[in-house]
């Protein structure tokens, strides 16, 4: 067991080294949530949200953290694994004594590290540019949101790479699946008008669930965080099952 953990740790370090060396890849992974944070944030997300005493940036900044988690853990991880499979790297790894669990945990661990770095950047810029910082009492929500968010969207990234039939299709599938949900979930604009039935449907998906848990860490809003946690856990389990069922190494 301890050997698997140390192998996973080594794999995570290796993945991190590769990630940071690919300067372009790293830069744009960070650039997307930060650019959106600055662009949309500077135009719309200031002042009270209509009909509430909630400041827009206290919703918008944590929403961008959620967006960063989704891009790094779901979109990038899914596309990357599909490419590694296409390049024959996964099958070479599979024929080594490295246990599958150690490899995949290492990849997830590296994704978690990247996600934390993105989160830290978004939080810092959110605080400096918009004066939005988490509540002192919101730390548990922040921690729970990040841990469950990486687990859930990382598992979904693995599932995506398992379902995508080719390396090319992984990114379009990822974008087509999360972007509409992100818009409907009010990630980019909390006041985006959504019919009641659609809002109820969107609530079943993990995008809004993660955003709401993180929003809770910035400003107490009337949510049911337990429901959001259940939604994230359910999607983690479903994604894990799909991965176990369909993940291929070659």
């Amino acid at each position, binding site marked *: 067991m301890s050997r698997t953990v140390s*192998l996973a740790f080594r*794999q995570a370090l290796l993945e991190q080294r590769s*990630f940071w060396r690919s300067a372009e890849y790293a830069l744009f992974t960070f650039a997307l949530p930060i650019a959106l944070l600055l662009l949309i944030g500077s135009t719309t997300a200031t002042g009270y949200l209509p009909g509430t005493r909630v400041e827009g940036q206290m919703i918008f900044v944590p929403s961008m953290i959620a967006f960063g988690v989704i891009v790094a853990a779901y979109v990038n991880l899914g596309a990357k694994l599909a490419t590694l499979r296409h390049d*024959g*790297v996964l099958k*070479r790894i*599979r024929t080594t*004594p*490295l246990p599958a669990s150690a490899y995949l945990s290492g990849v997830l661990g590296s994704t978690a590290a990247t996600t934390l770095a993105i989160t830290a950047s978004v939080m810092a810029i959110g605080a400096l540019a918009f004066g939005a910082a988490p509540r002192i009492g919101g730390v548990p929500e922040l921690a729970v949101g990040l841990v469950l968010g990486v687990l859930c969207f990382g598992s979904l990234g693995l599932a995506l790479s398992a379902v995508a039939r080719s390396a090319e299709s992984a990114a379009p599938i990822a974008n087509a699946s999360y972007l509409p949900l992100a818009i409907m979930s009010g990630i980019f604009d909390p006041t985006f008008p959504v019919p009641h039935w659609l809002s109820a449907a969107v609530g079943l998906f993990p995008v809004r669930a993660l955003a709401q848990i993180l929003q809770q860490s910035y400003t107490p809003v009337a949510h049911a965080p337990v429901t959001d946690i259940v939604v994230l856990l359910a999607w983690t389990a479903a994604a894990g099952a799909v991965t176990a069922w369909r993940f291929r190494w*070659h």
Partner: protein
Amino acid sequence: MTTPALSAREVKKVYRPRNRPEVPALKGVSLEVGRGERVGLLGRNGAGKTTFLKIASTLLRPTSGEITIFGHDVMAHPEEVRPLIAVVPQEGKPFFHLTPREQVYTYLRTRGFSRESARTRTEEAIEQMGLGEVADRLNVTLSGGQMQRAMVATIIATEAPLLFLDEPTIGMDPFARRGVWDSLRRLTRKGSTILLTTHYLDEAERLADRVAILQDGRIQVVGSVRHVARRAGVKTTIKFTAPQPVLAGAVATPAGLAVVLRGEVASCQTDNSGPALRELLDWAAANGLGDLDDLSVEAPTLEDSYLQLVSNGGPQ
């Protein structure tokens, strides 16, 4: 008797793509590879070579049949097999953002080598593959042939008991290919066993103790290059420059040998070159033709045998 490095019995694999007819890739492959042997697996594109290597290296489950590596069942206990094998997959790409040196080293560490031993082996493999000058450049900046050398270096550094190489020298220059051959010979001297696929028949001829020709999902013939040539029925060719009296029609060619004239060159084909040569020289002496100029004996190459076998062996 020691257990063979690889033993396959009646391995069958049927691919069942959705909405398309099923593809029987292997129709019953039986093959035994002894310890320390170098065996070349040949066959046309789509003959099933890569499918067989995938099954043997724990990547793919066969539809039926049995395959063991040093006595360990590949299907039942892949985790026992993996430490014993190392694989250069077909057109596998290296980790783009590592250098060749880092790639070999981390791969060895992943396989459980100590830091010290991984470092020594890495340097040896880098040198053997002639990667010294590019060893600290990122793989993504290397040429195709250099990347392939980095892949081979990664695998030979393990000195695993059984190495699978799927078209290992593809895209390499002739110097690099010879470097790979030397390294593989060195590995078998140290006790490793090698199963490789290749489309370069000169590579198989120079490197493999035995070749197996896979066609239409079955192994058509297996044995030394000479054995394969005999099975293929490819004859030895004897050539010489036709003396003037023969060209002028004054002297008939020996009756027992079907000599063919093409311009100045006379040639005949035979299963048994000794008696044929004796007959030819006796005939020359009897007719006062002296020593036959440019007399040569060409043994069948693997390429001749292969083309013969594969073109006669059933539908393409």
